[in-house]
């Protein structure tokens, strides 16, 4: 259990520290690259929460997919990485206040609510459990996802393609 606490604090520190770089770095590529350790930190938390399959998905889709997409777009649009223009608008203090207030409210709710502890045990083999759920009660969700993906593909291609 000491190990779990150690792992949690380590992962939380990695996630938040990289998150701070993502949010504050004046260099957009640095932001995007710092997104990777932040996402990997969250991956570690999933593992601590016994969500192995989700951890694999997180790395494959977020770190290996979305980050690459973001890096591509930065490289396509920002010649010199945006270092020559200010990256922040004039709402700095207000933004910080609003974000801080939102986080404070969430923390207050999280610490004051007596969370109920449910009964039961987590399935130890998460891919199997998720698969059974997709082919059972959540079949519609499973099939619906493919439609969402189709719409995304069509929409994004329509938008991104050069109109000739």
């Amino acid at each position: 259990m000491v190990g779990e606490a150690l792992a949690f604090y380590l992962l939380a520190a990695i996630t938040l520290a990289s998150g701070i770089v993502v949010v504050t770095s004046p260099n957009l590529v640095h932001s995007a690259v710092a997104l990777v350790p932040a996402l990997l930190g969250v991956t570690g938390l999933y593992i601590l929460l016994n969500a192995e399959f989700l951890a694999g998905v997180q790395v494959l889709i977020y770190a290996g997919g979305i980050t690459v997409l973001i890096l591509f777009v930065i490289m396509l649009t920002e010649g010199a990485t945006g270092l020559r223009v200010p990256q922040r608008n004039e709402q700095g203090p207000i933004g910080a206040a609003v974000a801080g207030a939102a986080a404070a409210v969430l923390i207050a709710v999280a610490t004051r609510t007596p969370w109920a502890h449910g009964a039961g045990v987590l399935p130890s083999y998460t891919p199997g459990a998720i698969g059974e759920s997709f082919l059972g009660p959540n079949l519609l969700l499973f099939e619906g996802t493919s439609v969402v993906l189709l719409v995304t593909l069509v929409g994004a291609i329509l938008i991104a393609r050069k109109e000739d």
Partner: protein
Amino acid sequence: MDVMPWYVEVLRAIVGTIIIFSAVAIVTAMLGVLLERRISAWIQSRIGPVHVGPRGLLQTVANTVKLLQKEYILPRNADAVIFSSAVIVVPLAALLDYVVLPFGTTRAGPLIYRDLNIGVLYFAATSSLIVVGILMAGWGSNNKYALLGGLRSAAQMVSYEIPIGLVLITIAMLAGSLSTVTIVNAQTHLWFIVSQPVSFVIFFVAAIAEVNRAPFDLVEAESELVAGYFSEYTGMRFALFQLGEYGEMFAMAALAVTLFFGGWQGPVLPSVVWFLIKLYVLVFVFMWVRWTYPRFRIDQLLNFSWKILIPVALANLVVTAFFVIVVH
């Protein structure tokens, strides 16, 4: 499973890691580079390295020692942080693959660093991290060749990740598990190469592209892009990228052995020997292909994945699913 004190586990993990890293560095990067040079020489009717050590065996050792003494240069315009961290990311992501590769068996159980129950998904996830490292190297160098090489490489690797994923799913469905050890055990009676030849061909072609080798090596096309994304890297940093490349190539070959050739299984000889024999045969084929075929153009390369490999892999998945699930 018996519970050991935590420090024993930690020690075991550290020792295991050191063994695997050293073995991979020696077996893949050092022997692999030597093998590559000897095979290319043989195919091109040259002699190849013969002077250092008996029959040239120590050539790569000498090269490594040479590279250790080289100065490392940080180009003035490069982004120092990203340029330097890319060197760690690429080989580390490649070596992380080896966690789930079973390379033998003993009476106590299979020889594997850890038999994760999301096995092949873990492999796919860690190898996808290499793309990020390559983009970092390409962009961090602030060099036109490097950036163009990095972008090409990323576009190519992501395109070929999809057919590999589809093949992994086909095999996982046959074995009913994502664990690599279970997949090997499922081939006790019949290797999957026999029942799934199409999958193997798709996997093999996509694996060559995934590790950026000829005929899919336009990422590092020497005649147009110097060395691609690692053009600006010198000395040991260059060697680390080579370690990453060869490490990933051997990991792909080892995965092919695991998925299609029954892993460590074989008669008479010890299991590790069987595994190594199969591994080196596949690696030999990789090298043979590299030195035999000319290079693709980038449009042909991307079209090939999206218009041929992916439709065929999808069809193969559905047909296999039909036979396995409905007919049986």
